[in-house]
């Protein structure tokens, strides 16, 4: 690495396109809505920046606090589910024979190459009342009735009629959709750390008498912590801000903060309130990232000591 003074012309040629793009089309737009959050609507399109705090106060309205609470809850449940589902998958890939590894990895990443809207739409056909999960359940129900009929138990056990489960348009569907869409984000960082794991540590643990389960929780999980933390962040942050998944799969009672922000900027046309909400969401995101940095820093310090 050399000082930029050694070749200033080359340095500026490298750095300027990206820095300017970032400044003009990322920092400036964010700064603009940061300003808008302190504004008041002065007409259908005009907004005066009056440095009012009313918009931020509006965010702390009980209705919106409830929405934030639900968004945090939904994102947390979805992240935990993705971790529980993804960890064995990552483990299976990293311990797979070398020639199969890229193949299984591709299998996990491939759905990721499909547009998020299409994947969310695909979920509708699976979850709706006349969807495939309910078709499967109905089939099992019919099978059960036929098997139980000779014993006269069919009506007692299986009920009179098959009642399809209401799987779509509720919070469960939203959580399901988030896990479906963001699972690859969880598996990839987990795989990256598990693959670098020193196998001899696992062998030592097993040799010294720890069972598989104890080895998993005392050796694998602590060593995979950087990957677990990255995976959690990569799923939690987009889950917190999602609006498409809750828009298509959620019901009227499963609006998330992303939907409300979208509404302020489109249908409701209350940009200052939407801007304040966006920034509260951003501050929550930064808090999560700062927490991670703090945890990483503390662990690094402990490791050195």
């Amino acid at each position, binding site marked *: 690495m*050399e*000082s*930029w003074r050694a*070749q200033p012309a080359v*340095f500026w040629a*490298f*750095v300027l*396109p*990206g820095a300017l*793009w*970032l400044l003009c*089309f*990322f*920092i*400036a737009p*964010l700064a*603009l*809505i940061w300003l808008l959050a302190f504004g008041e609507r002065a007409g259908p399109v005009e907004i005066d920046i009056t440095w009012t705090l009313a918009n931020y106060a509006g965010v702390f309205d009980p209705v919106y606090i409830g929405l934030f609470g639900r968004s945090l809850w939904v994102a947390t449940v979805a992240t935990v589910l993705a971790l529980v589902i993804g960890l*064995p*998958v990552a483990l*299976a*890939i990293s*311990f*797979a*024979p070398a020639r199969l590894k890229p193949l299984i990895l591709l*299998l996990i990443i491939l*759905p990721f*190459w*499909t*547009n*998020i*809207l*299409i*994947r969310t*739409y*695909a*979920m*509708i*056909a*699976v979850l709706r009342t*006349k969807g*495939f999960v309910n078709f499967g359940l109905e089939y099992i129900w019919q099978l059960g009735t036929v098997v139980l009929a000779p014993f006269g138990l069919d009506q007692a056990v299986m009920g009179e009629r098959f009642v399809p489960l209401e799987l779509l348009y509720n919070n469960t569907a939203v959580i399901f959709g988030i896990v479906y869409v963001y*699972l690859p984000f969880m598996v990839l960082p987990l795989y990256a750390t598990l693959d670098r794991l020193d196998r001899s540590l*696992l*062998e030592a643990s*097993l040799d010294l008498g720890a069972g598989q389960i104890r080895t998993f929780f005392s050796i694998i999980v602590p060593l995979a912590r950087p990957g677990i933390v990255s995976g959690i962040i990569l799923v939690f*942050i*987009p889950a*917190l*801000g999602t*609006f*498409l998944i809750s828009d298509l799969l959620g019901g009227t009672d499963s609006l998330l903060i*992303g939907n409300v*922000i*979208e509404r302020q*900027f489109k249908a409701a046309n209350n*940009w200052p309130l939407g801007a304040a909400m*966006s*920034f509260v969401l951003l501050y929550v*995101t930064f808090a999560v990232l700062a927490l991670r940095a703090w945890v990483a820093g503390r662990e690094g310090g402990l490791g050195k000591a």
Partner: protein
Amino acid sequence: MARREPIGPLDYTRRLWLRLWLLAVAVFLYAPIVILVVFSFNDSKRNIVWQGFTTDYYVKAAANASLIEAFTNSLVIALVSTVISTIVGALMALALWRFRFPGKPGLDGAVALPIVIPEICMGVALLVFFNRVGVSAAFGWPFSLLPIIIGHVAFSFPFVCVVVRARMAGFDRSLEEASKDLGASEWQTFWNVTVPFMKPGLIAGGLLAMTLSLDDFVITFFTAGPGTLTFPVQVYSMVRFGATPEVNAASTILIVVTVILTVIALRLQRPDKEAAKLA
């Protein structure tokens, strides 16, 4: 398979429960997409029960002028934003890899920011920004795509930067010195030594940028002007209107296009790998 070895304590992948788990996750990930593709051939308006095979809905989708326009726009956006983000991202990666300069940690963090912040925040920020700056509407077609392209570059060039920088971390700078000692100019060295080494990173980064662009919904949704048709926004309004086989057909076409582009990109990458093996 009589001569199979017993499952070792660390042969996790050979354990039955883990295999079943992997299979279940694969079904979970693929079944919805497979069902979507299969039902694009379903001869039924309500699209709930299989009625028979038909390609009618592809014919309908192909005759749907706004869908075709939306599709063309999305491909143009993907191609242009891929080229720009690959160049901008690679240059930024070279700057961060090669130089020491004041404010470097700040720039490093700022480049990572579009990757980590919620998409919706970036989406609404760009919506307000382009509403105030108003580049495009007056100039007509290719320019009406400009806000979307700009937005796509803004969120995908940081990914290219990460990928290219990771590639450059393995570069032996004495190769550059050797090239200069042997009389090559700064420019010749860059073009004949640095860039060829960087190439796999450029292809991987470009591929990632294109995938991100084709996958994106949120940024496109917020930056597309009222008169601009793009594929995700068009499909979104069709979905809101109701799940029809036509939506399935349109989605299937996008899936196929994405897969074909990816396969081409992977093919392009392959000779490079072989060259690396020979070297």
